[in-house]
């Protein structure tokens, strides 16, 4: 696990810097839980619980807990939640999803991919960017996107699929370079 200079905190580090590092860890854990299929609100709850458990385990004065420890704690919390719900099939699917995460996200929990994606988004034409913002930013239904962009519902579906494919290529290219 590679940590940034900011994240390599030692006991006694200023609280503000530690909070920033913890917030970064929180975002990674939440991202991981979303990858596992966890609902957004629940992902935030599980991520916070994992961090609280980490603080209790490693001490509030310590540095940022190891990411694998956090991910395991969060995964267990999510697993417990699924079991409480009786969602046995999804419990069984967690381990393959975790393996997939390890394979594609890497040691930085996809931070590099996110940075690359940000650059790729900046290169998009305004209309394409708007379509993605409507879909992912405003959670707009397909009909609303179609109305705003002057497309049919199927056209929106095709547009989003093409955009995702293009972004995937762009991200891959940037990571490779």
């Amino acid at each position, binding site marked *: 696990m590679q940590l940034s200079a900011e994240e390599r905190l030692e006991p006694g580090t200023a609280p503000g810097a530690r909070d920033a590092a913890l917030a970064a860890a929180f975002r990674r854990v939440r991202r991981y839980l979303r990858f596992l299929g966890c609902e957004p609100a629940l992902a935030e709850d599980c991520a916070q619980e994992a961090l*609280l458990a980490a603080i209790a385990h490693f001490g509030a004065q310590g540095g940022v807990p190891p990411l694998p420890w956090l991910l395991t704690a969060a995964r267990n919390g999510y697993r417990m939640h699924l079991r409480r719900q009786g969602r046995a099939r999804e419990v069984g699917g967690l381990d393959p999803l975790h393996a997939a995460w390890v394979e594609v996200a890497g040691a930085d929990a996809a931070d590099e991919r996110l940075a690359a994606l940000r650059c790729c988004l900046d290169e998009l034409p305004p209309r394409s960017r708007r379509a*993605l913002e409507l879909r992912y930013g405003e959670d707009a239904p397909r009909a609303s996107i179609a109305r705003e962009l002057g497309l049919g519902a199927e056209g929106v579906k095709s547009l989003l699929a093409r955009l995702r494919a293009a972004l995937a290529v762009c991200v891959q290219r940037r990571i490779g370079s």
Partner: protein
Amino acid sequence: MKREGAEKRLLEVLLEEELGGARRRGASAHERPDPRPLRGRWLAAAVVLLGVGTVVAAFALQGRGGAWPGAAERRPAGQPQDPQPQDPQPGEPQPLELVGVVPHSREEFVDLLAGVRSIRVHSLRPQGRGTQDTLVTLATDGTTRFWTLESPATGQRHTAYGQADPWKARNVAPDPLAVLEIRDSGELADWVRDLRSSPAAASSDPDDPVVVRADRWAVWTRAGEGFDYGTGDRAAVPCTELAFELADGRLLGAVFDPATRVLRCSDALGLRVGEELLQRIGTAAQASERNGRLARGIVLDLDDLRLLPAATRSVQCPWPTAEQVRTGLARLPALERLSIGPHAKAAPPGREVLAALAGLPALRSLELCADPALPALDALAGLVQLEELRLAAAEPQRAGGGAAAAQSALADLLPRLPRLRALALGGAAFGDADLEVLPRTKVERLQLVGTRASAAGLRHLAALPSLRELDLDGWQALDEVGCEAFGTLGGLRRLRIRLARGQPDGDAVARLRRRLPDCEIAVEQGPGWRAAAVWTAPPPVSAPLPVYLPPPGHGR
């Protein structure tokens, strides 16, 4: 998952994270239809409550000096920043009561368990499908088995009403075939052992031992869902979710499986518990089960009636005595819904009990397993505020005064309930004759479950203009005569037919829809009973369960 699929999934997550600020900050400005069913909305409400609790916990945590990562980015725009929380000073106690413990090794798990101060039971739940309110038994494989016996040699049908809920369609046999509840795990060997050790004759009383003397045995099984930890062995709760409170106030969460006696903190950490801890878990689980049950108004022991809070609005209990109605139920002024289950063997309910029930002032809904009380039903006429009445009676011959007296009592009762809008009749005790009286009521919703009603009886309903919803469960056949009878019910808006057996005929359904164009119609196939095994002698204890398909027409 293939790498390509994983990358697509990750891209979606990253897009949501990068662009999804608006979604995290609040609801979307775009209207979208709410596809969630009622259950989903309850779940959503629970999540909202959980969120409120989380916020409260966050404030408590911040008040104690703990940091809450990510809180800043969820703060609404424009709201001033809270002062930076102060870190606890060395030696200052941490807010441990908010923190769960995650052991990292078996040794640590054992050490933590050694310091358990108390056990909280978070939930008692099945490992398979199930609902907590269904009065049937969940087998260990996650399905419920319904067992039926028949004796072709004697022609006798042995029925056991048992704890089965006549209002759940899945519990009702398509005809008066026996439905025997297996109170243990449902293993055939246990069932056979019980049969062999019981000297008494078969009975419909759930407390009677069951013996069927026949030269041919058939065991029928059907998959269903649901479980009941309120009957039988309460210690055999399929799965228990626990929180161990440690000496320092922290909580250790774990899941306990009584079948294997394994306590799991995570997939990697499982321990087989010893006798002492097993006993403590069992005690905590039973107390939790009882408290949770009483909180829902479900009473198994009539002595517990006195424990119900005065604000109780819904009660489910066995048949009480008149004295218990007066001292236990009548002291609940808010009681609106009452469900009375099978009668106790020693005290069959009489007219006095029903008269006492009629004195409950706020009762709006009444459900009775009414076998022994049918001839005295007219004593309920004092319930002028009653809006919903559900009656189940499987065996008219057990109704004391006989079927005629029962029918007369029902005919006398229904017209005297001016606010009655929903009526449900379940069991073979009811038939066409009981529908004759309905035109003298204002019933809007009628449910017939496993009754002997036929198309001839439906014609009486043509004179009931208020009828809007009709639910027929265990209907024999959707033939031309039936379609014609349904066609006379012009006021119907919803019609659901569940056939006693077989698949619905598409042409018949189409004809029915043409006759009732304004009615929402659903026709479902029969329950699909199948024989699991057949023997010519009482089966051996270790008999396996071969698959056996009954001959055509079997089961009538």
